[in-house]
């Protein structure tokens, strides 16, 4: 059964080729069948292969399948080969299952779009590239998939090209992630030149054998890989592209910019775990990137008006959790949170897609409202998703994974109190903004008429994802609930287990720590209810007021929260919102573009068309070189 591994990426690839070749000869139905069908078959293949992998693990708990040797240059022989272990199993299952559901959803969501076939062409290419990325057995093939998903992301963000703003967003995504890609490519060459191979497993073994722990070269290599991950996974300081990426259709946001592609950075770090184990400083950097990102993005999410932008910031924030977990050596916790997040975040985006569709393209949450009765299916599933995002205790998968992540920030040797407190704060903010969406969108007065209701191809994926958003959490129960953790056992075959050796490990693992989170979550949900249901007007006034202090003092004075609230909450939010709006990173990108354009202008002006100036330039060059010759 494992020999069918190649089929998993080959099927979407075949779908892509068919869609390209047949293009206009296919009707919408044909394109839908090929587009969604190829991914569906790929999902079946993935279930078969991964199922047999889980049931009867191959020797060494991994299987490798080499199709052919790509090239043989200077002793460097990258193979077109696939590698399946526990980590890639998790990703492959998520990609194919979520991918198929989103394809199905898209057949209805995009049915009146003139670019229907084009959409599925890109989407199939994306699934293929993503599968290549996670199945690659060498870093070069991985990079191939890495660039492929980047290209698809660009094409799909700019899918509605008639609006130049969308094209701009696509380009921004492409360019910003390119910054990370450059770091990654540099990292790959460093690894290649230092270790002589890019084949992942031999490379990691070689790194362990040749590099001393915390040696500079290991740290640099790990940091360069982190650079690539930061770009792709929209982490600080390269996070700015993701909110703009919401210009694409909602299924794209769900599949690419929530569930799969943006977690490629998490995958990359998890895949190169031994490298990061060698580099303590790099791990610290990973953790810092994670914690800073999750806080910044969390606060940003809190003040967004655009439904999809709010979800985008929450994605950034949740990936921040995954990265944070990796940074404190909670490798498996990061992977777990990836798995749960993929389901509930895809669910949220798909739900948002239905809502936006139902309201004829309205994105502003304050123009929605009262949708609970009109779109009950969406309401229920969206609430499940939001609850999972907020880590509602016991019944959602988000609770189990986030609890594990937060515990690791305290419980492992790399963890510390500050990271713990930060991640708790982040969890609190998460509950605020996730339920804010629920209250504002589904409760209160209706501001916009519902013009369209979803049919089964849209609601079915929502229900399935909602179910997954609940049950996948039970794959890894915390120790104080019971000893049921099949996922942990499975991941142990590929990743180092979490070692509870930190100073506060005992507390972190206990029910006490979970109790803190439970408290935070319930408190957050309750507070968000108060803020956006009964006190909504006050909250608005409060947020809008330029001089918050007197109002806040009067309004919240009796509670004693006013002072804390203003200092810890409003000001930083405003500051963060301001910061995020001005996008410091944009200036850097614009600056690079400006320098290039200035170079073009100068050089182009030199191309006068005049022969004599051409001769003069050549003569000047010769004189210069000869001067060096003579003077040396």
């Amino acid at each position, binding site marked *: 059964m494992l020999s069918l591994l190649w089929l998993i990426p080959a099927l979407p690839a075949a779908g892509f080729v068919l869609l390209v070749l047949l293009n206009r000869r296919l009707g919408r139905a044909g394109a839908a069948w090929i587009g969604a069908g190829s991914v569906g078959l790929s999902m079946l293949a993935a279930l078969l292969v991964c199922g047999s992998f889980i049931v009867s693990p191959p020797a060494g708990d991994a299987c490798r399948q080499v199709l*052919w*040797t*790509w*090239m*043989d*240059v*200077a002793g*460097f022989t990258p193979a*077109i080969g696939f590698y399946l272990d526990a980590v890639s199993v998790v990703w492959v299952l998520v990609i194919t299952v979520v991918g198929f559901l989103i394809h199905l959803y898209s057949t209805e969501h995009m049915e009146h779009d003139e670019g229907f076939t084009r959409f599925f062409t890109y989407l199939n290419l994306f699934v293929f590239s993503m599968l290549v990325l996670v199945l690659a057995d060498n870093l070069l093939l991985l*990079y*191939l998939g890495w*660039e*492929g998903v980047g290209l698809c992301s660009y094409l799909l963000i*700019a899918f509605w*090209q*008639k*609006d*130049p703003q969308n*094209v701009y967003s696509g380009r921004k995504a492409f360019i910003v992630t*390119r910054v990370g890609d*450059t770091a990654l*490519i*540099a990292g790959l*060459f460093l690894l*290649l*030149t230092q270790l002589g191979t890019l084949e992942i497993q031999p490379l990691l073994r070689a790194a362990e054998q040749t590099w001393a722990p915390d040696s500079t070269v290991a740290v640099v290599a790990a940091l360069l890989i982190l650079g690539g991950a930061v770009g792709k996974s929209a982490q600080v300081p390269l996070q700015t592209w993701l909110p703009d990426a919401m210009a694409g259709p909602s299924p794209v946001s769900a599949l690419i910019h929530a569930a799969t592609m943006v977690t490629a950075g998490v995958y990359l770090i998890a895949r190169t775990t031994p490298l990061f184990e060698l580099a303590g400083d790099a791990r610290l950097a990973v953790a810092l990137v994670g914690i800073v990102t999750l806080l910044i993005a969390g606060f940003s999410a809190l003040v967004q008006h655009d439904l999809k932008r709010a979800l985008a910031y929450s994605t950034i924030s949740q990936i921040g959790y995954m990265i944070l977990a990796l940074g404190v050596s909670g490798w498996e916790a990061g992977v777990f949170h990836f798995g749960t997040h993929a389901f509930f975040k895809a669910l949220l985006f798909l739900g948002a897609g239905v809502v936006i569709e139902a309201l004829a393209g309205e994105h502003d949450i304050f123009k929605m409202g009262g949708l609970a009765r009109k779109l009950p299916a969406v309401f229920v599933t969206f609430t499940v998703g939001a609850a999972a995002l907020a880590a509602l205790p016991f019944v959602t998968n988000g609770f189990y994974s986030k609890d594990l992540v937060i515990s690791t920030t305290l419980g492992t040797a790399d963890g510390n109190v500050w990271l713990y407190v930060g991640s708790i704060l982040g969890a609190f903010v998460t509950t605020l903004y996730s339920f804010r969406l629920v209250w504002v969108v589904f409760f209160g007065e209706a501001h916009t008429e519902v013009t369209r209701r979803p049919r089964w191809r849209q609601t079915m994926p929502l229900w399935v994802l909602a179910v997954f958003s609940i049950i996948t959490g039970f794959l890894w129960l915390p120790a104080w609930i019971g000893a049921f953790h099949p996922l942990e056992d499975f991941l142990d075959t590929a990743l180092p287990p979490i070692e509870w050796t930190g100073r506060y490990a005992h507390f972190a693992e206990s029910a006490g720590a979970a109790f803190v989170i439970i408290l935070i979550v319930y408190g957050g949900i309750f507070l968000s209810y108060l803020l956006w249901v009964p006190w909504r007007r006050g909250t608005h006034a409060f947020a809008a007021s330029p001089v918050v202090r007197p109002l806040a003092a009067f309004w919240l004075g009796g509670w004693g929260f006013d002072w804390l609230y203003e200092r810890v909450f409003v000001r930083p939010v405003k500051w963060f919102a301001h910061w995020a709006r001005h996008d410091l990173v944009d200036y850097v990108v614009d600056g690079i573009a400006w320098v*290039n*354009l200035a*170079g*073009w202008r100068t*050089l*182009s002006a*030199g*191309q006068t*068309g005049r*022969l004599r*100036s*051409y*001769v003069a*330039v*050549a003569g*000047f*060059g*010769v004189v210069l*070189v*000869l001067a*060096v*010759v*003579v003077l*040396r």
Partner: protein
Amino acid sequence: MTVTWGDLLTVSPLIALTLAAVAVMLAAAFFRSHALALGITLGGLAAAFGTLFVAASRAERDVTPLVRMDAYALLFIGLLAAAAAVVVLFSWGYLDRFRVHPEEYYVLLLTATLGGATLAASTHFASFFLGLEILSVSLYGLIVYAVYRDEAVEAAVKYLVLAGATSAFLVFGMALVYAQTGTMTAAGVSDLVAGLGDDVVATIGLVMLLVGIGFKLAVVPFHMWTPDVYEGAPAPVTAYVATVSKGAVFALLLRFLLPVSSDQGSTVFLALTAVAIASMVAGNLLALRQDNVKRILAYSSIAHLGYLLVAFLATGERAGLAVGFYLIAYFATTLAAFGVVTVLSPPDRDADRIDDYRGLGSRRPVPAAVFTVVLLSLAGMPLTMGFIGKFVIVTAGSGAALWAMVIVLVATSTIGLYYYTRLIVAMYVRRRDEAGPAATPLPAAPGGTLGVSVLGVLTLFLLVFGVYPQPLLRLVEHAVSVLPWP
């Protein structure tokens, strides 16, 4: 020293090209026919290609001190002949619209290829110089072939004056080297380079010699003519200028100046480093917001020759492999790119404005798809030959620790991505202010079937060897292994 029958067999590819040129000319004297000229030309090129195997079956040998027919020379002669054949196939439909007698065109194409082939096999200043001049003089005629076009005349004047002037530099440099060392052979020049030390006169000679080479390669600061000539020359000729003339000179560069890379502190090495970096930067920047497709390709070719110089400056056989493979990839992509321009060109001008390409994806899907693959390959996207080419260069460059150049290469490739995607976007994305296809739609170019099928073959070549480059890599490796690597 006498030339034996065996020697003649060894140089039979060169003889085939010569005879074909004479045959086309004689045939045209009696019977003016485009098809006949095309047939003889293709036959001549096929004969040159076929006789490569005759030459290969004989032990590699020097025929007089002037030429050496080894695997290296044969590979490049084959490449040049194949490229010339592709240009000929593109020219068929193009010249048919051209309304001037096409026969001389084929004579000049064959003599130019002879010049290039001579360069590839050259081991002596005399064959170097003559090969270069045969190439140049034939190109003057080819560039100005559409004599009724003012741009063609302008381009030809620029090319002629600059080629003449740089040839003078070249000869002066050769004379200085000869005056200083008494040698004119490739081996002698290589020895000289290897033990150059601080021989100022010989270094000046080498630098002046490099002026002539640099002009043909169109690297900074000898690049200024490139966009004008590319724009003014007929599209198939531009393809020829961009590939055959550069490839032949690069083959020669490796043969004469191989040891330059062994001393990274020498003046010549530093000068070439500066040239490579300047070419990568200037070429990519100049193309940035250019609106003429031929000029974009001209500027990008400057950058690509910069990349090739990086490969040349890396040490060892890996560098040879990089040069050889990258050249083949560059040939295929460039030929296909100008092939697209050729196929789309209406009778009165070349399809070189970016506006001509707007909405091409829907009007002419096949050329548009080919152009997309070509541009992706030029940008170095994986699964195309361009990527493998860039990859072998970067491995060669980092293997020789040429970090500055490798970094510039990677950084400027990113700039390149901008204008390549700009073209792709122009072909597939319709702007909002644009009602239908291009405001002045390009008249349909008739008789492009042959050209389009050749384009298909080239695209397949780019993709197949992008996914499975192994056979080509082995071939190049075998060919460059005969050079005297340090």
